[in-house]
């Protein structure tokens, strides 16, 4: 390590040790003016987070230099990850979350200025490294914040997808999958997987995909449907698409989508009748029924 860096670290480390209490007080004051969301976080909580941040900052500077990816900064990274995770969940904005770290600049710079008042060179270098350090910590906070949000969004998407694809057994060997809402790629993938898994599980030869509840069918949706039908066929099951409204039939033809190879029916009951036929069953009125009625 070169001597300059050593000195600088010693400088910053000393400031963090000696002025700890005044830094903390200044910082909390700073935050109460800008980022503290008293509606979302208690002052005592913020105070203990800030105190811990200061302590870990000093530890990091003392032992590992300014590279926050290093092992010495591990506890700091954990603290920031925890802070941004909880902030993301509490409803802080990314700016508010990062400002927790960045707002420390003002009190820290003030302390640096006081200490290096007479040495302009050292002051400039010191300020630069402090700002670089805090920036990288701030960015790290943002990154974790976004990761947390992403995870939340992904989980919700998955939950929603699972909820929205009920496969129902209509008869031995006949499944139905009523689709409600818009079909996009992600959803179709889930629809496809759920349907095919159910085909295997229930040993069903015929599956009816009912699209009565699908508002529009564009080229992409039609292709997805086709893929599902083809995949089911590869496994040895037949698909019937039902609930094709006149308007959708028109769109399909106008778009030039070839559904010739797919059996389509206007209603679910038509499809069910066909499915029964294909599995070798038929529906008929028993004479008993009329007898009961008159009796």
């Amino acid at each position: 390590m070169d001597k300059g860096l050593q000195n600088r670290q010693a400088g910053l480390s000393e400031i963090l040790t000696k002025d700890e209490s005044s830094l903390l007080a200044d910082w909390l004051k700073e935050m109460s003016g800008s980022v503290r969301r008293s509606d979302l976080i208690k002052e005592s909580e913020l105070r203990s987070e800030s105190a811990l941040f200061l302590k870990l900052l000093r530890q990091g500077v003392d032992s590992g230099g300014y590279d926050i990816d290093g092992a010495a900064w591990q506890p700091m990274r954990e603290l920031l990850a925890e802070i941004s995770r909880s902030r993301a969940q509490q409803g802080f904005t990314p700016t508010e979350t990062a400002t927790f770290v960045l707002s420390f600049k003002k009190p820290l710079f003030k302390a640096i200025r006081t200490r290096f008042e007479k040495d302009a060179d050292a002051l400039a270098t010191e300020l630069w490294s402090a700002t670089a350090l805090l920036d990288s910590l701030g960015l790290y906070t943002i990154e974790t914040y976004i990761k947390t949000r992403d995870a939340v969004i992904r989980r919700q998407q998955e939950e929603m997808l699972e909820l929205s694809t009920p496969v129902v057994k209509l008869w031995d060997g006949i499944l139905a999958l009523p689709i409600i809402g818009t079909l996009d790629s992600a959803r179709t993938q889930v629809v496809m997987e759920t349907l095919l898994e159910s085909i295997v599980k229930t040993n069903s030869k015929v599956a009816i995909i009912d699209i009565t509840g699908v508002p529009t069918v564009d080229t992409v949706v039609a292709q997805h449907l086709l893929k599902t039908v083809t995949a089911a066929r590869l496994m040895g099951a037949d698909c019937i698409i039902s609930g094709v409204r006149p308007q959708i039939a028109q769109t399909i033809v106008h778009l030039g989508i070839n559904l010739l190879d797919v059996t389509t029916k206007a209603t679910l009951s038509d499809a069910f009748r066909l499915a029964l036929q294909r599995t070798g069953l038929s529906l008929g009125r028993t004479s008993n029924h009329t007898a009961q009625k008159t009796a």
Partner: protein
Amino acid sequence: MAVISSETIPVTSEPDIVFVRRRVRETAAQIGLSLVDQTKVVTAASELARNTLIYGGGGAMQLESLNGPRLGVRLTFSDNGPGIPDIQLALRDGFTTGSGLGLGLGGTKRLVNEFAIESKVGQGTKIIITRWK
């Protein structure tokens, strides 16, 4: 983006293709890809490994698992074969040279999230595919 693990597997014989499939499957399962996504990336690996062997005259696959922003698996196939003169044509569905092997790269491309190809005639081909969680 961080590389969690990396290994290089030679692709110089038919059993190598089987080994490529197995290692890609293990890695894809490790990072938690869904069963369908595992199957897609393993199938893509099988296709590309066969291309590397048959058209590239053998080569190697680098297998990496990635972290950031999401988990993923990245495969790099490289060979020093004759190269592909017309990449656009090779990406078209149903394209194949001569022997009737290979579906063309278009199908393989649909099995992964990212697909990159570099090829110089007379020098070789490099194909990089990534499947994210």
